[in-house]
């Protein structure tokens, strides 16, 4: 039952950009519970989410196994997908996520990827597109324990803000205790390319279609590595459907 002492607040590192009011009205079980998944050695498992509310997934991927997570976070209220992945020798974690939307909402992804054995790889690509007073966040922590040599971990976050009041936050955190590892992370927050918008207009493409083409191209990066191409297409369509109803 609700135990106030365990309710996270925005003072907690991992919840620092969360919607404080939404946290207060949520129950502790949702905010602190985990869906547990075990991927046996050598096997692959894929999960996909149309994020609503708060969900937390904890995964352990056995030797040379693979876990793929894909998600669109376009929820009409505070929504957060959190994923903690532990990778054994040679395992791989692939994450493609998109936060998209307007309003006053906060939509976020939080990942913690723990390389506990050597040779594991991870690749995380998150794209955020927001307008109104909306916020999109990506907090990604990568931990590489001692002896987890030959780890290759990549993280890439890019956000496009379509209106002035929107915002995006990212906070990559690296804790590396092995010496022979590759960790790459990139982050950029910007606006749509205006010159490309004018170029399209000069060819007769109205602003709303130009915007959709640009956002589609931007967001597609997140789903490029999804193994099931049809799923990737559906996620892309889902993400773009939010843009269609937007008052911009």
């Amino acid at each position, binding site marked *: 039952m609700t135990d106030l002492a365990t309710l996270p607040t925005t003072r907690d590192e991992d919840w620092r950009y969360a919607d404080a009011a939404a946290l207060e009205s949520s129950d502790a079980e949702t905010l602190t519970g985990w869906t547990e998944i075990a991927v046996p050695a050598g096997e692959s498992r894929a999960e996909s989410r149309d994020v609503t509310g708060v969900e937390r997934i904890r995964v352990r991927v056995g030797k040379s196994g693979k876990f793929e997570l894909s998600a669109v976070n376009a929820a009409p209220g505070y929504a957060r997908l959190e994923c903690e992945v532990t990778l054994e020798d040679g395992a791989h974690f692939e994450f493609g996520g998109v936060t998209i939307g307007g309003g006053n909402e906060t939509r976020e992804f939080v990942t913690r990827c723990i390389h506990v054995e050597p040779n594991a790889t991870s690749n995380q690509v998150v794209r955020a597109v927001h307008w109104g007073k909306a916020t999109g966040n990506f907090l990604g922590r990568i931990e590489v324990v001692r002896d987890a040599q030959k780890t290759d971990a990549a993280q890439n976050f890019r956000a496009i803000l379509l209106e002035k009041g929107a915002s995006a936050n990212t906070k990559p955190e690296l804790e590396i205790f092995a010496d022979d590892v590759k960790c790459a992370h990139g982050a950029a927050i910007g606006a749509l*390319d*205006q*010159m*490309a918008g*004018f*170029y*399209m*207009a*000069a*060819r*007769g*493409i*109205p*602003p709303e*279609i130009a915007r959709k*083409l*640009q956002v*589609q*191209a*931007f967001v*597609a*990066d997140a789903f490029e590595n999804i193994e099931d191409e049809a799923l990737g297409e559906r996620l892309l369509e889902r993400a773009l459907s939010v843009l269609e109803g937007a008052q911009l």
Partner: protein
Amino acid sequence: MLKIENLHAEVATADGAKQILNGLTLEVGAGEVHAIMGPNGAGKSTLAYALGGRPGYEITQGSVTFDGKDLLDMEPHERAAAGLFLGFQYPVEIPGVSNVQFLREAANAQRKARGEEPLTGGEFLKLAKEKAALLRMDMDMLKRPVNVGFSGGEKKRNEMVQMGILDPKFAILDETDSGLDIDALRTVGDGINSIMRAEGKGVLLITHYQRLLDYVKPDKVHILAKGRIVKTGGPELALELEREGYEEVV
């Protein structure tokens, strides 16, 4: 068909608005090709952008009518649908959007604005193949993202393929000849003639060199300096400029 009168235009810069066009007057009749030449920084591209309606380019005085309609009253995409084509001096890269997708959206948006039926995928591809062949561009390039990784000359050739597909009434071509090799220059020249030399069409050709004008013969040549037309003549004016330079002629 394009009538520019006393055009004054400002460009938004980091230190405020800067006046670039200072009372430019020019008229191109249907069926005509006019060339505009002029020193670097004279305002040629500014004129092209102002006519295309680029954000940040403000018309402070003057008027432009296109086929009897007030051009300046239209949004940029409406100007295109009305038949205006702008060939860019620096064609823009659009990562993640293929040429085919871009041009099909463009062609169908224009058709929709004119109350015409959209082209089917098959009809569009047939048209695209035909125009790519006319400009000797490999169809594979049309599958690539718009201008991304294209060489300078390939970008210019791509502009002309786009013009062929969109089949405008009036084209403003801003240094389409710059960056083209000798053979490409001829191909592009022939392309311009085949697409735009027709009754009821017109071309404003911005160029620094006589060479393109050997292929696309202008009816008139204008010299643009300091934001206005300072001299107008026949094709011989371009030859005179090539020999003597701007300082002598203007």
